[in-house]
């Protein structure tokens, strides 16, 4: 058994190598706890995956009556965090409920929506949630706007376009604290997979709130990472990506029609500072599939009905 898992890890490692990334992975069977991991306890940069602990804190607050998820919030264009999707890209004032903002922050990784949710929940509540769930290696350090400001300051640039243009200059990537797990929002693959498993087991918040979170993760639009590893019409893939220069992540849950469900967290760092690197996106799906297949193999001497 051990030998089989080891050879599976070798294949996962080879997939990461072929894609030109360093990969960190943990996958766990949501119901049995059976697991597989590669550098699963090393600190990793969360990037937009920080929106997951934020979402959990939001729904725990909502369940406890400390905020009203249907409360309307007005977002003015000049106050909004930059970003490539959602409310961040709009031109005019937007009025929306907190829970709809939470939906956008996950489904399209909307930074303006995430900052509004962060402001409503507060950093202390996110810290408390992370601590209460036993995620000791996880820290959420600041909002999207904070991270944006830090990247511009570290890069010595006026906007992210300029940062991308100068990313090939020696030393620029090294200076960015946003890419250093010890200086920014961080976790480990094991803890992020555990968090997703808790959401799927109704343990991260009351069942009704967990169900709302699962709905939102299932509506995430991106097809290029975790989802690309499971080209099966009857398999549901729910997740949340995270992206910064050289950083490509996704954590999620893969659900098979036989009831098997697996929480997976994959974090990668690419050698090339290229913005568009399809193989680095796809290997998140490939490595997740290799891991999930290993978890779906029957244990020796214990035949299983799943097929």
């Amino acid at each position: 058994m051990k030998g089989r898992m080891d050879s599976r890890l070798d294949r996962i490692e080879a997939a990461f190598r072929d894609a030109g990334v360093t990969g960190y992975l943990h996958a766990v069977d949501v119901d049995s706890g059976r697991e597989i991991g590669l550098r699963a306890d090393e600190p990793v940069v969360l990037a937009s995956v920080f929106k997951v602990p934020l979402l959990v804190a939001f729904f725990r607050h909502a369940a406890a009556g400390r905020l009203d998820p249907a409360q309307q919030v007005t977002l003015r264009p000049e106050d909004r965090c930059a970003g490539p999707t959602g409310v961040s890209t709009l031109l005019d004032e937007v009025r929306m409920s907190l829970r709809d903002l939470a939906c956008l922050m996950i489904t399209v990784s909307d930074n303006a929506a995430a900052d509004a949710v962060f402001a409503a929940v507060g950093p202390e509540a996110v810290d408390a949630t992370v601590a209460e769930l036993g995620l000791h290696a996880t820290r959420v350090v600041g909002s999207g706007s904070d991270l944006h400001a830090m990247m511009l300051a570290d890069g010595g640039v006026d906007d992210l376009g300029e940062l991308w243009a100068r990313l090939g200059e020696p030393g620029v990537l090294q200076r960015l604290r946003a890419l250093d797990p010890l200086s920014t929002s961080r976790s480990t693959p094991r803890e992020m997979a555990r968090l997703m498993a808790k959401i799927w087991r109704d343990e991260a918040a009351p069942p009704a709130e967990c169900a709302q979170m699962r709905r939102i993760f299932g509506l995430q639009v991106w097809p290029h990472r975790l989802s690309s590893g499971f080209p099966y019409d009857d398999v549901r893939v729910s997740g949340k990506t995270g992206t910064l220069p050289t950083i490509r992540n996704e954590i999620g849950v893969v659900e098979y029609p036989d009831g098997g469900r697996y929480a997976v967290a994959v974090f990668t760092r690419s050698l090339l500072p290229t913005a568009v690197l399809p193989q680095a996106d796809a290997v998140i799906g490939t490595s997740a599939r290799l891991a999930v297949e290993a978890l779906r193999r029957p244990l020796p001497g214990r035949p299983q009905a799943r097929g």
Partner: protein
Amino acid sequence: MNLVGHLQCFVAVAEELHFGRAADRLGMAQPPLSQRIKRLERELGVRLFERSSRRVELTAPGRLLLEEAREILARVDRIHSLAERARRGELGALRAGVPADLTGAVVAALIAEFRARCPEVRLELREIGTSEQVRALAEGALDVGVLRHPCEVRDLGLGSMLGQPVGVLVPSGDPLAAAPEVHLADLAGRDLALFARDEAPGPYDELLAACRRHGYDPAAVHEARQPQFAVGLVLAGSAVALTPRTPDTPGVTWLPLVGEPLLLRVSCAWRRDTGHEHAVAEFTAAATGVLCEQAGMSPLPSAPPRRVVPRPASGFLA
């Protein structure tokens, strides 16, 4: 008290923020670990951690002392590794790595130049690919290296970035050999011989992506660990080789590419804490000079600005 041992315990708990995991990491049981932390707190007269049933957190003094403690432990490690090297008679040696494809003349010139600058330091030169150099630098098995970029350079010091245009090696009888230079697209249909990917995956991927971009998508890539293997494949008519200018070899012709679409980037890189700062600086100056004068490299004044058209899926915090 054994301060170093106690500081190791402190750092482990501070990094894990969990007594059980820290004890696992240290290979000890939890009760003696808790006792050691308490004893250290008594010795220093400050509380290092706030402990509750749910979590362990660093106090403000704890955070302050953590950095100092790490520094002390790093220095202790260095004392051990220096002692170990002294035992093995390695002190006074600079361990340097260079890529496999430098010519004999370049290697000899590099050694001579280093000897002239730093006669008191023995140079231990190893032929070693970029990936392995990065690993060896991180593990402390190498003091300084000559790396091909892009590669993982976090925590390393970097020397001047040098560029080396890549051209193509074709059989002298090939119709292409008659032209003064070649378009990459003209290579279409020919197999490619190239350095091995595992030696430097970043530059390999970057170079192949640039080839495809410019109309050359080789059906097969033959990886050559030794430049002579690539020359052999070219001589036999099995492939063309993409390589920096090589010494003239009968039967093959090296041609520049139109517009210099491919550039290999090289720099020295070093660990910051080797205790060999002077020797590392001299090696870097020697290598940079020799690579420019004898290996056809030239300093890149600054990286050319990249043009990056934003796409939502790869945008900020997507």
